[in-house]
């Protein structure tokens, strides 16, 4: 690589709160790979699809504001949460294709001295690693091959659907048979587990109001992975992680079977293989015991 990669990082809320290990492992991976990261300290919550349910226009205004700060730096905005990715990309798409809406949003943004132009790409870190850094280059940096691990890739809905919205940012991933995480696991010399639920929903978004639905969806995926020999699961989405790591006890009760499977963030898995420190990887922050993976 001739030119150093440089991105504006939209951390999202969870990486600043309940999943600090996501932020530390992301920064550690970028550091090891020589990718420059500028954190967008001005960025707000993306609305997580819930603010969108309450007030769609307001959600567009706030997401456009986040992208404005990446545009000011002249950088691609990268996300480390599928839901941040979806909501940012939906606003970008809506504004870039609807001049009337863009004008209405910019009218509001002008009140705080900002203007959305549409000049920055919005891309999940997973796909910048694969499409821009390159799997071969990552492979060269592996110091702790994951060859002893059967790893179930869990893609998370908001990176792969709707595919038309994402196709430019995610390299045209087939939502019915995605491969990016599998290929990343391969590059780290781990063993990707084949199982049907890898592109299914984890149920996170109805955790409060439709708890049973949420538990069954997460349970189906976790048990499917376990039944196919997974020793850990990996996901690019901290919301999938929260649902599937934090609630394994209650999921087990609903499913009538013990559920025990460490669920790692995508950057944590890469950090493991690149030999980052235990502190950077942060497995101690998991509810389901995962610290044995660094042993």
């Amino acid at each position: 690589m001739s030119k150093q990669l440089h991105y504006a990082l939209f951390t999202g809320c969870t990486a600043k709160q309940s999943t600090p290990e996501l932020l530390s492992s992301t920064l550690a991976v970028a550091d090891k790979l020589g990718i420059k990261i500028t954190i967008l300290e001005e960025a707000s919550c993306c609305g997580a699809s819930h603010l969108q349910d309450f007030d769609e226009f307001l959600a567009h205004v706030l997401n456009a504001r986040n992208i404005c700060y990446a545009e000011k730096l002249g950088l691609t905005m990268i996300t480390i949460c599928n839901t941040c990715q979806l909501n940012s990309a939906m606003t970008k798409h809506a504004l870039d294709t609807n001049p009337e809406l863009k004008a209405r949003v910019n009218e509001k943004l002008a009140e705080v001295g900002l203007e959305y132009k549409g000049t920055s790409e919005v891309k999940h870190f997973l796909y910048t690693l694969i499409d821009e850094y390159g799997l071969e280059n990552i492979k060269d940096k592996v110091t702790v091959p994951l060859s002893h691990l059967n790893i179930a890739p869990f893609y998370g809905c908001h990176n792969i659907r709707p595919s038309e919205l994402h196709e430019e940012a995610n390299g045209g991933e087939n939502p019915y048979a995605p491969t990016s995480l599998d290929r990343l696991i391969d590059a780290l010399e781990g063993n990707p587990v084949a199982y049907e639920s890898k592109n299914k929903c984890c149920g996170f978004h109805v955790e409060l109001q439709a708890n049973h639905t949420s538990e069954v969806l997460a349970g189906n995926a976790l048990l499917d992975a376990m039944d196919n020999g997974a020793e850990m699961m990996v996901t690019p989405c901290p919301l999938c992680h929260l649902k599937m790591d934090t609630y394994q006890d209650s999921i087990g009760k609903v499913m009538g079977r013990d559920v025990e499977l460490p669920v790692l963030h995508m950057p944590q898995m890469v950090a493991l293989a690149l030999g980052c420190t235990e502190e950077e990887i942060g497995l101690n922050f998991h509810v389901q015991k995962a610290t044995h993976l660094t042993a």
Partner: protein
Amino acid sequence: MNQSKKITLKTFRFNAETDYLPYYKHYEMEVGKDELVLDLLNRIKWEHDGSFSYRRSCRHGICGACAIKVNGKATLACKQNALELVALFGNELLIEPQSKKRAVKDMIIDKKDFWEKHAAVKPYVVTEVEPHPEHETKQSIEEFNNFLDSDLCIQCGACHYSCPALEVNPDYLGPAALNAAYRFTVDTRDEAAKERLEITAEPGVGVWDCVKCYECAEACPKEINPIEKITKLHNLQFSEGVAKSNVATRHAEGFLRGMKKYGYLDEADIVTYSEGYLGMYKHLGTAIKMMKSGKIHWHSGVPFIDSIPKIKNLDEVQKLIKISQTNKL
């Protein structure tokens, strides 16, 4: 894709009257570049096994009868080029009905649940019509455009049988019925908007049980994007004053509480605010586990203690909320 290809169709077979369990049969065939999935279904029936059963009618993507699944992908057989799917999934295509548990014979399923949900949202214009009107009930272009794409629904069931929420909760209306609810709710000739919004606001039944997986947007052969209409119904419930304060509506509106204070969602506050203090007992076990692993802290969500760092230029977010917010709970 100029050349034909030799492929295998791994095909779901089942006759509810005679078979205890379904089974799969493999059919090999040479497929040409212009052949549709429906052509392949015809060839199974005409060249291999005359008992093979599937619905087909218009052959023009209008009647919705021939909807099936190929490798898990919702497919309108008469609209889908076969080699496109080969490019996507390889030389073996898995041919299955939309819902295996509802299979009656091979590709034919019992769609009773679909039609019941559809009927439940009053999918028609409700209004008093003059017996002898002097002129048509006109629609402006804007009024028409409001529901134009949602009106393209052909009731094929592709979204309905791709929805994972429906698989778990049989009371949920599902994306097709909710799209129909939206279509007639925003029709200016209709007078049952409020009633429909109340039906679709019902916990356990309506829009709040959507899991946001976007399977419906992916599945629709008419590119309607049902979840986009579900989001619009959510918004209409607030703008039309139909939304009642409950765990789901507070969860949506409550995002602004943390955003006004910190710029971020306040994760602990959103759970407390949505559930109410009494509802918090359900989350105690999880909260203790999260505290033990350092995911949350003793002061998370405690009023008057700022537990989250504020974003830079928070005043911008506060001002934008003030001048852009259109809905209220």
